[in-house]
């Protein structure tokens, strides 16, 4: 399509991005348009304030954690390639992809999706979800619906169910195991193009 290819030309390193993330040109263009919309001041990059400005996102209980996941390593700027790389986690898994043992997992593999979810809990990046971190997330999600005691019991039970090595924290492997029955592809994918 004419408009797609002309917009595509404006995106720097489009070919590499598509190769890395698996997005089609149409997807990439759509994301580029969205990036421009979010970048109201036309800075060329996004800041956390641009994210907070999205009305519906601001109402999300884990809004700050999601924004934090975009701005990894504490930076205040997000350029387009990084934006796309994060969003690539939410592409549906390609079932027909040939499995080459030597090449790295694509960004949207089940394992990488789970790692992304894990880091939402693990704010201090020590590779484990501590009881305290779990409580914070539970508190954010359940807000005023439960008492503090109930929160603590639920957190206790959550850790008890998953914690196999009894260190009172959930490692990534334990996290992955507790979600083995869940269809992660279904739960963590978005159909990007309408």
């Amino acid at each position, binding site marked *: 399509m004419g408009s797609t290819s002309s917009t595509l030309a404006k995106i720097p390193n489009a070919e590499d991005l598509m190769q890395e993330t698996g997005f089609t040109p149409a997807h990439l263009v759509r994301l580029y348009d*969205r990036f421009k919309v979010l970048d109201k001041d036309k800075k060329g990059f996004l800041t956390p304030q641009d994210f907070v400005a999205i009305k*519906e996102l601001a*109402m*999300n209980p884990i809004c700050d954690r999601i924004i934090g996941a975009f701005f990894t390593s504490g930076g205040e700027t997000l350029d387009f390639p990084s934006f796309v790389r994060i969003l690539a986690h*939410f592409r549906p898994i390609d079932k027909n992809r040939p499995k080459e043992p030597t090449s790295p997992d694509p960004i949207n593999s089940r394992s990488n999706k789970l790692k992304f979810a894990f880091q939402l809990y693990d704010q201090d990046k020590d590779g484990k979800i501590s009881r305290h971190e779990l409580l914070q997330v539970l508190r954010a999600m359940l807000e005023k619906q439960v008492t503090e005691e109930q929160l603590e019991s639920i957190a206790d039970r*959550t850790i008890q169910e998953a914690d196999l090595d009894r260190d009172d924290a959930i490692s990534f492997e334990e996290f992955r195991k507790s979600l083995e*029955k869940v269809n992660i592809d279904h739960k963590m994918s*978005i*159909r990007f193009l309408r």
Partner: protein
Amino acid sequence: TALLPIHTWNLPGSSMLNLWMPMTVTYIHLLLLLLDPSSALMSTQDPPPSLGNHSMDKNDVDEAEGHFTVPIAFRVFSVDYHHVQAPFEIVLWIMLASLAKLGFHWSGRIPAVVPESCLLIMVGLLVGGVIYGVRHTAPPVLSAEAFFLYLLPPIVLDAGYFLPGRLFFENLGTILWYAVLGTLWNVLGIGLSLYGLCQLGGWGLEEVSLLHFLLFGSLIAAVDPVAVLSVFEEIHVNEQLHILVFGESLLNDAVTVVLYKLFESFLRMPSVSGVDVLAGGCQFVVVGLGGLCVGLFFGLVAALTTRFTARAQVIAPLFVFLYSYLSYLTSEMLHFSGIMAIVTCAVTMKQYVEANVSEKSNTTIKYFLKMWSSVSETLIFIFLGVSTIQDVHMWSWPFVSSTLFLCLLWRALGVLLLTAVVNKLRRNAVTFRDQFIIAYGGLRGAICFSLVFLIEDFPKKRLFITTTIVVILFTVFVQGMTIKPLVELLDVKRKKRVLPTVSEEVHCRLLDHLLSGIEDVVGYWGQHYWKDKFEHFNTKYLKRFLIREDKQPKSSIVRLYQELERREQMGETDEGKRERSPAM
């Protein structure tokens, strides 16, 4: 469905006495023996079967004329059957149905092989046969009015109240796709091909018009919720598959209603124009949306009413039943889809009612719904069996077998084509195995049966009735019995028997929030976006208005946690507890 009742119980009152004498003469003997020591009186009062009426009437007449030949002073003991006749007979039928169901569950290995519906139909056939053998006339037929007004609503209400809401709405697009387009495809396919075959076949059916065949197609194509529920309850396929088949059977009611009435009114009109067909198409929207709105209205009113039941908790469940039934009746009165109304009503009011009423009332609601729907279902199947024994069956091998074949063929083709299209738009593709079960699980039941009786009389009506009965019996028996082994053979994904763990629930909730956030970032109005929007609206306005101040509903995480704790305290393990609805 919204159709005017024409038939009522088509038997004269007094012959019902003779009907039950063969079956319950022992029962009454025992009863009388227990109640009365004096055998002399008993023998006068217990007439032989064939003279049942006459001796009673004679005694009454004697009394009236004041002829006391032997003054036994006044009657210490007498049997006055007419006084209690109607409720007595209803209770006896229900008792028969329930005893059959009990016996079925105690009969060793049979329940594993034969679904309940088949056994009940067989009992019905037996009873019908006995009645026919004794009286040499046709046994009572399941009247359409009794079916649509009394037997169908409890089943649909139970199904709607316990519908897995989230799963249903996630798959709503696919369900509607199958329900609307699939039914249309089947109706037109079966109607037109039957017409074509009859024109060419030389089976003596050339005079039957195209409209009659289309009418027949519209009633035979629809998947029946009662039959689907009954069979699928026992095979435990994965929830997505279950909701697809079941949701389709519920929502295709709107299409069936419209098409049936459309063709029926076309039959009465001298000529049909294109405008009329278009009006029919609009009517479909009216019927569907109308049912929806009626259901929504009554659901919200019911929710509001339960807000104030704190001081009279005992009658709180009654409001649930009354409002639901009212929504069904109102919808039928307005010629909307009753099934859609009652399902919408149940789905709408459930979360608010659960929060507002006490635990005991919630349990009451649950068990009353289960009980009523179970009784209804049993009665429906027994009557299907009884009504099969008819005086006049018109049989035609080619017509019956081609109808059966075409039903299966068009359903299979329809499912294949529709799924091929819809899979492109779904996140979770419907696999070929699932598609096979969807096509194979398209069971017909009592709705077709009642609808065929309501057709206006025309020369070949009895043939249509016979064919419908054959199709229903085939789908329930053959497909119903073989679907379980097929599910195992094809290794279709089964239902998870255990509850999720709390950590699963917590993490999944996190993922929901995450995906909502990502959808917001990308600006994509997907499922999470709409779900969130509804949740916000719900929390901000609806819950405040419809739920008592002190009783805000609990999060699913909290509920799951409490349920798991409760079970552990009771000493039940997850594997031991079965999730299926109690098949009482």
